[in-house]
């Protein structure tokens, strides 16, 4: 039975990701945030449910749609907002931006601008831990889009032959950018591919944080016990297009409405929490998150820009 505290923590994180992104999209629209911004809105329960089953020292590998993974693994939102604003105090000192936030200290090897680019890396962190004789596991987040990239099959095979503690988390949101899954593959049940590599796999509702958590919990302990890699396919749907400037016109409105109004991971998590906690306490969580995000934005806005001379000196010192 899941504890009230854990449920509250997971709801807080889901609400945190939702608030972080909603607030940052406002900053984006105002012109303060530039570049690409791929929202995780609608997929929050996957990162949160999965990371809740991990230990602090476990590793994760993220994607271009990575804000949720960062927050769920324990990144600080103030340094995240600062990075999105390109500030010196950001996780990457303004050199990386949305698609490259990493926090090795919290086990987050990083977001990645290349679809599928991080999958093999995650097998590497698992291999390193196994060589050192540690029981750390690695969770690799990637999309349905990445499953059609060769490196996915290769990496799954490597993790299988070396029996590594890797959880391959497919965030199946139905689209590779805007290309629908059904024209990219013959069988949209992506977890089935694992069977070809003799890897255990399941498919779960990625919008239900409890379902994700319970599956992750089972899977992570299996990995930690040395039983080799697993695949979890989490079915989900984005709340908007591929990035902030993609209106997502190709997304059927009925389906979109269903996922936003009737099957929203935030609403589902809130309902779970309300079964165990009075509304005032839930509201208190929400208030504290809203405050934390506003403080993060204030911190980021007040932070200095990276110093140009220092940057140029670093370039000469490091790359020439």
């Amino acid at each position: 039975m899941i504890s009230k505290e854990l449920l509250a923590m997971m709801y807080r994180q889901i609400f945190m990701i939702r608030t972080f992104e909603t607030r940052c999209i406002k900053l984006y629209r105002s012109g303060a945030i530039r570049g690409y911004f791929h929202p995780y809105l609608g997929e929050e329960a996957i990162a949160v449910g999965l990371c809740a089953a991990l230990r602090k020292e476990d590793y994760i590998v993220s994607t271009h749609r990575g804000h949720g993974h960062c927050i769920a693994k324990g990144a600080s939102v103030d340094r995240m907002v600062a990075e999105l604003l390109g500030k010196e105090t950001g996780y990457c000192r303004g050199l990386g931006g949305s698609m490259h936030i990493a926090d090795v200290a919290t086990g987050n090897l990083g977001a990645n601008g290349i679809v599928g680019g991080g999958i093999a890396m995650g097998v590497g962190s698992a291999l390193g831990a196994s060589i050192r004789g540690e029981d750390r596991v690695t969770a690799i987040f990637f999309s349905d889009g990445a499953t059609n990239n060769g490196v996915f099959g290769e990496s799954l095979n490597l993790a299988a032959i070396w029996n590594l503690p890797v959880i391959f988390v497919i965030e199946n949101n139905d689209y590779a950018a805007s290309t629908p899954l059904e024209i990219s593959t013959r069988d949209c049940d992506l977890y089935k591919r694992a069977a070809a590599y003799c890897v255990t796999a399941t498919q779960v509702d990625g919008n239900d944080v409890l379902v994700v958590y319970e599956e992750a919990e089972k899977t992570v302990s299996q990995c930690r016990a040395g039983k080799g890699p697993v695949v979890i396919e989490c079915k989900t749907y984005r709340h908007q297009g591929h990035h902030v400037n993609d209106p997502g016109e190709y997304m059927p409105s009925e389906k979109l409405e269903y996922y936003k109004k009737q099957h929203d991971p935030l609403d589902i998590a809130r309902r779970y929490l309300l079964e165990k906690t009075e509304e005032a306490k839930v509201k208190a969580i929400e208030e504290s998150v809203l405050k934390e995000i506003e403080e993060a934005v204030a911190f980021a806005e007040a932070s200095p820009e990276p110093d140009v001379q220092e940057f140029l000196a670093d370039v000469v010192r490091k790359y020439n």
Partner: protein
Amino acid sequence: MSTTTAVNARTIMYREALNEALKEEMRRDPTVFVLGLQVAARGGSHKVTKDILEEFGPKRILDTPIAEASFTGVGVGAAITGMRPVVEIMFLDFSMLILDQIINQAAKYEFMTGGHGKVPMVLRTPGGCGNGLAAQHSQSLEALFYHTPGLKLVMPATPYDAKGLLKSAIRDDDPVIFIEHKQLYMTKGEVPETEYLIPLGKGDIKRSGHNATVIAWSNMVPRALAAADKLAQEGIEVEVVDPRSLVPLDKELILESVRKTEHVLIVQEAVRRGGVASDICSIIMEEAFDYLDAPVRILAGLNTPIPFNLNLEKHCVPQEESIVVAVKHLLEGSEP
């Protein structure tokens, strides 16, 4: 010649020197491990990883499937999280399958993370032609890596350099592309019994001379030295400068030699177009133009894939004879 004499030196092969470097570093540091195709049980296609499995066991040296992109990515991920992997790619040509992992991931990781992530990984791979291996097993592709900020690039020419540089590459905190040469694996040279390191970014004068500077690396070094011997018989004293690592590049050593001889020939096996030689030439033009007594010459591979036929192959890349001719042209001021 300056660096290759030691009291207790033995004569060993280039590939044996590399093997010693790997073993010494693996003994010294438990985070060093090796992975690649048939590196463990078979000891490597070029015998560089011979007997490592026996000494260190299967956790420290792993045979991989033919899946270059992913096992290189595995190296990157292991490096980020505290290991020092040495990844072997059987032929430099096959590294075209791993460009995302090297150019988009490894090279940029430290930069993109604002400096808090590091990728201390070595990618070892043999390049070059000379065996009739045809167009997909003979290329000299160093320019691709030279072009990419965030990578270091090492191309040793002798057993002594190979060992000292590989040890430094393994200890380096940046991703290092370490390009060996197929024709050099069986060549012999003096290597001390005692441990030594050669810092990356420090070139070597392989032969002193005052008439002309020949800049060469990898398998072009022995050819340049053989050409220098011939030229010496005609009274032409050539200085052979081997940068050993192209990134970082020992510019000062090159410029010093240029200022002395006032004549420069750069010899590269890689195709002429867009090559490292052109970049070194531009550095000399910008920083030592006033010292030059003649235009800088480049003798490079032809802009062609490498043909299978051995005689044709020989005509595509600089040879001892063509270096002799090029130096004479340089000194006579005649047309290349």
